[in-house]
């Protein structure tokens, strides 16, 4: 049985004074435990809406999300600790008045309920797992860089030992160096703890580094689903082709925008 089965999910947003907008059309996907699914598409394709449905923040208009064999939205309180999220903007994702310890402890206190020394020990383990130091626990968000704060957000996401983590553009606003480090961290955590990810991104390079399978959304429709990196690399359909063409040159010799050679003084 797959950990996650998205079964013919459609989602409609009702709007005031405007016709309702269907943002997801009949999307079906499956994801096995311990794997990472890349959810790719341009802005407005419906990636984040699907993420919100997985988190239980919204209920699909039609269709079912089966999580571990259970209808995710059948119960009154679909959110439990088993699905966590890491957002793009880490500064917006944390309360600036809480310390790193408070931030990481929130899911811990909600779902695991550790006390005293055991709780403190767990916080230390968590912050060290994401490559920060125990002394960082007493710091506030403003004292961290974007990359460090994203590590705190990841520590918070893994704190309650979730089955699935939704990474919604989790590396998109990081600089090159941090992006690489955070991707490596996510890959390590996945391997060590058997974590399962849904990685929402428009960054094809980042997706290729982390994901095992790839789904492409365009205007709310699933237009491609590739079970492996090899299949994704070999794909020739127009959606993947458009993504490849949107990639920027790696070396100035491959540049396509600036056709003229640099002017020499």
């Amino acid at each position, binding site marked *: 049985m797959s950990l996650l089965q998205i079964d013919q999910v459609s989602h409609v947003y009702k709007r005031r004074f405007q016709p309702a907008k269907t943002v997801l059309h009949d999307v079906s996907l499956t994801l096995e435990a311990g794997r990472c699914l890349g959810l790719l598409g*341009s*802005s*407005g394709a419906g990636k984040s809406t699907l993420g919100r449905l997985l988190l239980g923040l919204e209920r699909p208009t039609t269709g079912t999300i089966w999580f571990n064999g259970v209808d995710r939205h059948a119960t009154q309180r679909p959110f439990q600790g088993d699905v966590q999220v890491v957002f793009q903007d880490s500064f917006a994702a944390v309360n600036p008045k809480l310390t790193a310890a408070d931030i990481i402890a929130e899911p811990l206190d909600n779902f695991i309920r550790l006390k005293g020394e055991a709780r403190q020990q767990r916080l230390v383990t968590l912050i060290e797992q994401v490559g920060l130091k125990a002394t960082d626990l007493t710091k506030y968000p403003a004292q961290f*860089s*974007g*990359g460090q704060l994203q590590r705190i957000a990841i520590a918070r996401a893994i704190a309650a030992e979730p089955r699935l983590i939704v990474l919604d553009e989790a590396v998109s*606003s*990081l*600089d*090159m*160096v*941090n992006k*690489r480090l955070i991707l490596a961290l996510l890959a390590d955590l996945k391997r060590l703890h058997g974590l399962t990810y849904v990685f929402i991104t*428009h*960054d*094809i*390079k980042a997706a*290729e*580094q982390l994901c095992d399978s790839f789904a492409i959304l365009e205007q709310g429709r699933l237009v491609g689903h590739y079970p492996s990196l090899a299949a994704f690399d070999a794909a020739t359909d127009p959606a993947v082709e*458009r*993504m490849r063409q*949107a*990639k*920027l*040159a*790696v*070396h*100035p*010799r*491959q*540049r*396509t*925008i*600036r056709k*003229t050679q*640099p*002017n*020499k*003084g």
Partner: protein
Amino acid sequence: MRGGARIEPILAVDGLTVRTKQQVTLIEAVTFSIQAGQILGLVGESGCGKTVTSLALMRLLNPQTTDVTGDIQLNGRSIMSLSERTVRTIRGGEIAFIMQNPMSAFTPVYSIGHQMIETIQTHSRCSKREAKQQAMTALEEVNLTDAARLLKAYPFELSGGMLQRIMIALAVALRPSVLIADEPTTALDVFNQKTVLELLERMRATYGTAMLLISHDLGVIAELADDVLVMQQGRIVERADVFELFDRPQHPYTQSLLAQHLGREAFG
């Protein structure tokens, strides 16, 4: 520089240093120049001083919290000692700025048209009707169709990619001699990134705008830059022609940045 007449740079920065009042050095001895039609890339990781540099060039740093020394020559005159009033006419007019986050670059309470017309009128003596016409033309230049409807729209009704194109349209309308583009594509998806870079290149080719292109994405630099400055902890550690930099990086820091950039590609 080969023989012939020396080309005067549009923007010449000499020994630019910014310190906080607590004597923390943010950038130190930054020296570079840009000529008309030239794109100078500025790369470095978060916190290295890229944005402080661009704010200093726009004279936007708060004088109560920072000390700026060194010299900035724009079109042959120093802007360091100009009054705030004079600087305000230069800002936007002679030197324009495109920021990373187009969502926060516009005020949410006025329509795009209101904001564009106001900005155009601030920098050129023209009627509201003429300013509106200039705004429409500029929007068309950045391939935004239905300009009349866009002018009536409010920022929240438009996507990030669209707002960034409107920012560029505004810069196009003002015809600055220098454009500072601070991470112009970072907040955009890959499809919009390429469009925005194409628009910058078109602006450069059409109007000969000199550009400082700030990015941590070496892909952006590879696409557009003529020369590249590499900044580390507030200092320029290397300046080279873009091809030279990618082929033969000299400084260890540049080498590590490139190894990561190229390595990621090899990995994919």
